[in-house]
């Protein structure tokens, strides 16, 4: 019995450690004070106003949306095509290619950032949207590959053989069978790519100019230089977005599971 109590206490404390910080920041988004401390003197939406109407924050949100959208499109297209190619088991270097596709997840962002700045400077792509989108795509693509290959691995190949035997040409099999079945994986890959781009700071620090300052980059420098409750308001939006994204992923996974 004391063992059970100890276990429950340990679990509760760890859950508090994991979740409490995220909850603690939320009410501060609605403070009327200029400092980020409790107790909150009175409630106000002034920091959301700041977020949406102050020039620096508004631009940052706008930039994050542009760069996030570009990254999502590019990473999803490249990652999905490559995952389809990786299905072919007869391919030479299949394993090495897969490793290469996943490696950007492993390489420290600062290392990649240094190399990326050197290279993009050579192309004249620093301080441009396309440069930032390329950099974000490199780190977002592994998530698409993992997600889509996972979905493709879940497709029973005999389902595609069956479609062929019923008279579907390879193109029709792809359009009517493979793609619809892989779609949940493609979608959750796209969501993960967008989230990665939204949260990316280090590469942005190296490649982006002042005109491509993203929301994450803006949060980074505002924590560093002059922290204000606008951070809490941004965090509130992020956490709300996360819960939404989480719901999308959970729902699409359960749809996939239902189809098994």
């Amino acid at each position: 019995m004391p063992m059970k109590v100890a276990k429950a206490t340990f679990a509760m404390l760890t859950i508090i450690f994991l979740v409490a910080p995220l909850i603690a920041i939320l009410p501060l988004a609605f403070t009327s004070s200029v400092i980020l401390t409790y107790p909150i003197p009175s409630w106000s939406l002034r920091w959301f106003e700041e977020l949406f109407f102050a020039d620096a924050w508004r631009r940052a949100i706008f930039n994050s949306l542009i760069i996030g959208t570009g990254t999502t499109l590019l990473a999803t297209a490249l990652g999905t095509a490559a995952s389809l190619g990786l299905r072919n088991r007869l391919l030479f270097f299949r394993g090495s290619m897969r490793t290469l596709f996943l490696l950007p997840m492993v390489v420290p962002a600062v290392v990649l950032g240094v190399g990326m700045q050197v290279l993009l400077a050579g192309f004249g792509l620093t301080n441009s949207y396309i440069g930032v989108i390329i950099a974000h795509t490199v780190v977002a693509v592994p998530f698409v590959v993992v997600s889509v290959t996972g979905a493709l691995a879940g497709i029973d190949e005999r389902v595609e053989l069956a479609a062929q035997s019923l008279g579907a040409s390879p193109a029709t099999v792809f359009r009517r069978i493979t793609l619809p079945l892989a779609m949940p994986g493609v979608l959750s890959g796209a969501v993960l790519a967008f989230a990665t781009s939204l949260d990316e700071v280090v590469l942005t620090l190296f490649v982006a100019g002042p005109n491509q300052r993203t929301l994450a980059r803006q949060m980074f420098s505002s924590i560093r230089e002059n922290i204000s409750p606008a951070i809490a308001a941004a965090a509130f939006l992020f956490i709300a977005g996360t819960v939404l994204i989480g719901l999308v992923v959970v729902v699409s996974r359960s749809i996939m599971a239902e189809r098994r």
Partner: protein
Amino acid sequence: MSAASSRTRRSLLLLAPLLFFLIGFFVWPLFSMMSQSVSDPAVLRLLPRSAEVLADWDRNSPPTIPMQTALMKDLKAVNDDQALGDMVRRLNSARSGFRTLMGKTTSALKETANPPVDLVSIDKRWEKPEFWLAIADALSPYTDRNLLAAVDLGRNAAGDIEHLPPDQSVNGVILMRTFWIAALVTFACVCIGFPYAIIAASLDGWKRDLMLGAVLLPLWTSLLVRTAAWFILLQEQGLINDLLRAIGLIDAPLALIFNRTGVIIAMTHVLLPFMVLPIYSVLITIPKNLMPAAASLGAHPLRAFLRVLLPLSLRGVASGALLVFISAIGYYITPALIGGPSDQMISSIIAFYATGSANWGMAGALGVVLLVATLLLYSVYARLSSDEVGGR
């Protein structure tokens, strides 16, 4: 067989875009970073004519007239005093006496009224091949100086590798600090994550969902949000200090931010999910009746744990620990925002060299060290997790 080969062609066509994209924007940047760390064209840029002539020199005979003329022309053409100063400093560290020799030579060359015919007439030392040798070596566009400096080594005048003097040995300290912080974070994650995963795996229903959800929520939350949250909690008027004061445990606020404590707490929070999830995924594959079976065979619960559950879950712990350690050594944001000056890890130093002082050579060299460490650890991790699949 044409069906198979057309299938291969189609697969390659699908793979090609991402392959070229990553070669261009992932592999190439890493290579250009590496080449930055070994490239050193500063002297070559200043002395292009000498480089041409010195290429034919046999490296031990006395300097020829064309060599002297070329160097004189080069030195006269230099109009960047800072670059000249850098070059002299470098030559002097390879061969002492260069500073005075160069000073004397450049002022003599400025004398327009009575131009010197050759260098030997300015200073007898120009007759000695050693000085020319130092120039010839400095002209090489490649150097191992940065890579050696990254691990606190350097070359002495004789060209042997030796430890740099303590006042220049900052990188070793930072590397050790990086590994030490990463190790502490890994240890904290194992201490919290392993029991947590065991408890989660032993439960079912909403209790398990709650425990897993508590791990996944922070994992999905923006890193910046989490760091900002810790910033708010840990600051002097933060919730933790308020709470401790309210219950009377402390009188004056504890220093929790801009120091090691804060960095460890925040990084443990960020990386804990990477420990819990691999262990959990191994644990749920272990049949639930093993522990009762061990008990029925007479094993005390602690003994049953040590002999049955621990060995079976060790692989999960090892891959979780590696994952946390690999992520920790490359961390930048958390130490940069929560840590003080003495908690900066290798990534911060790389960023400083790159963006702060534009010393791409050193940034590249430290980057190579971090990259190699990461890839080595990752290959161990990959081996471990592929064994896992094969073992089942």
